[in-house]
């Protein structure tokens, strides 16, 4: 009768005789599982980011971008020939104005915002007074800029939550002056917190941004469609309207959903590729286990012979070595999983990385699998040892 706790106990005591070696053998699996888990968690983090983004912007957003995705054209045109302009807003308002809640250009530049001695690296987002509605912002204090602010290129800013926290703490910033490069702006309002990307922004009239920082390109145009209209239909109408301003090659109109789902797809492919690379490191870990187990079989020839002389069958010996291999890989896998989890905590401040439940199962399942696959050959070798050969071994 073969008693399982007994085999586990003897596997443990065999492994504990050479702790350093056991640990080094485990290291391969630890690194393998850790890299699989960490990579999946990071990709998952990006996916979470996209979902958050999508949820906060709503599903009824159209984006007009300088042409992307029109396949058979010179890719350099995407950078060279940005034909988007502020004028497009008027065109859109003229033709589909009754079907949209608003449309705004979006000009984004990274800038350092200064308040007295404090500094914060933020994204300055230029848009018209409608951008408040288009982005679905809400006010924590003060007000957003108005149509007349747009018209007179007012030097006013509306701060994202995080920017306000970093520069002003608990103090009310409305009425205070901040500096971007060498220009001074008056804070007129603060947004409620709305997720990382939004909280890191500073909103300013695009007219002001263009004149102050000498920028004449428009990064994109965002159009918020009224809920009661079909977004695909409005998309076609916006496109038709913009043909008045530009050629078909110059721009494309996509829904926010399209953009996010294509990024999602890319991430999906990326995560499979990364997982494959990480899988290879797990394979290397498995080979390490096999290598050490084979050494161990040779070293323990005498022990094997003795056990067989006292009545152990080949299967008894094989199982004992198998359990040792599986133990190494499963403990290694669990440590790798733990480290993977710690790594998600480490990046938590900038990425909401999560470990999906299937990764946990996959990592542990794969560890057991590696233990079995790479433990089999050494176990069979151990089981096959002749008691007499083993006893003569010196």
């Amino acid at each position, binding site marked *: 009768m073969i008693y399982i706790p007994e085999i586990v106990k003897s596997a443990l005591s065999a492994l504990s005789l050479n702790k350093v070696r056991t640990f080094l053998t485990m290291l391969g699996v630890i690194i393998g599982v850790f890299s699989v888990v960490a990579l999946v968690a990071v990709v998952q983090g990006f996916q979470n980011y996209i979902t958050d983004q999508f949820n906060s912007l709503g599903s009824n957003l159209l984006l007009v971008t300088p042409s992307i995705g029109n396949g058979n054209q010179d890719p350099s045109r995407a950078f060279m020939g940005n034909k988007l302009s502020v004028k497009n807003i008027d065109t859109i308002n003229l033709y589909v104005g009754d079907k949209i809640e608003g449309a705004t250009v979006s000009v984004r530049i990274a800038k350092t915002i200064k308040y007295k001695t404090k500094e914060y690296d933020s994204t300055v987002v230029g848009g018209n007074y409608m951008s408040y509605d288009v982005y679905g912002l809400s006010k924590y204090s003060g007000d957003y800029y108005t149509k007349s602010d747009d018209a007179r290129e007012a030097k006013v800013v509306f701060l994202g939550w995080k920017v306000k926290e970093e520069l002003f703490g608990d103090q009310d910033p409305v009425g205070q002056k901040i500096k971007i490069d060498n220009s001074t702006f008056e804070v007129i309002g603060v947004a409620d917190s709305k997720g990382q990307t939004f909280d890191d922004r500073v909103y300013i009239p695009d007219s002001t941004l263009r004149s102050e920082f000498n920028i004449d390109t428009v990064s994109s145009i965002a159009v918020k469609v009224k809920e009661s209209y079909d977004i695909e239909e409005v998309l076609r109408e916006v496109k038709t309207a913009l043909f008045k301003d530009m050629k078909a090659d110059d721009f494309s109109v996509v829904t926010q959903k399209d953009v996010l789902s294509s990024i999602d797809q890319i991430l999906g492919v990326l995560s499979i590729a990364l997982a494959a690379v990480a899988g290879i490191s797990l394979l290397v870990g498995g080979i390490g286990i096999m290598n050490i187990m084979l050494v161990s079989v040779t070293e323990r020839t005498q022990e094997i012979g003795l056990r067989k002389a*006292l009545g152990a069958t080949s299967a008894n010996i094989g199982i004992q070595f198998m359990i040792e291999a599986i133990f190494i890989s499963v403990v290694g896998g669990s440590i790798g999983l733990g480290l993977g989890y710690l790594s998600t905590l480490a990046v938590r401040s900038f990425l909401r990385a999560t470990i999906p439940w299937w990764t946990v199962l996959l990592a542990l399942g794969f560890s057991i699998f590696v233990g079995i696959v790479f433990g089999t050959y050494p176990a069979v070798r151990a089981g096959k040892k002749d008691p007499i050969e083993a*006893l003569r071994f010196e």
Partner: protein
Amino acid sequence: MTPVLQAQNVCKYYDLGTQRIEALKNVSIEIQKGEFVAIVGKSGSGKSTLMHILGLLDTPSEGEVILNGVNTKGMSEKELAGVRNNEIGFVFQSFNLLQRTTVLDNVMLPLKYSSVPNTEWKKRALEKIELVGLSERLNNKSNELSGGQKQRVAIARALVNNPSIILADEPTGNLDSKTGEEIVKNFLDLNSQGKTIILVTHDDDLAKIAKRQIVLKDGYVVK
């Protein structure tokens, strides 16, 4: 009466390249139940080889080994393991204890491969450890014992599964003569309890304790 153990025309060859070493040549012996037999002979005469074959640790190149009337030739690996576990207690020349393992665990080892329920293991092992007088060293590791103590652990281990046959290959070889005598006295006691004992020794005085001597010379049985 059927002999407990019987070797019929057993030969053992070792082929080393072009050279063939004949360790046993046509050995036929019979051992009756309850006998105390000594196997003697010069170094290299084939004593250990014969012991290993009788103990089913090794197979003869030719001839048969018959245990309790059953030819062992047709037995599977698993059946052989079972017989080694239940019927035979082996005491090796060089102790062969598990390294860095306690006396208790060493003695329990054969039980782990037997059909004895695990709740019985400790009780049985303790009995045999007491028999060889090592109750005080129960939890000492094998490397913390003297040579004579190690040999006594090996004897307790050979007895723990209550085998009917005990094979001992030079059990006193590494011991001083006084300790050797004590060990042999243990074997005598066991013999008086009905166990069949086969003892290999090069010490003629020890061999005389046995009721019968089998003398090997260059692989032949000469007496």
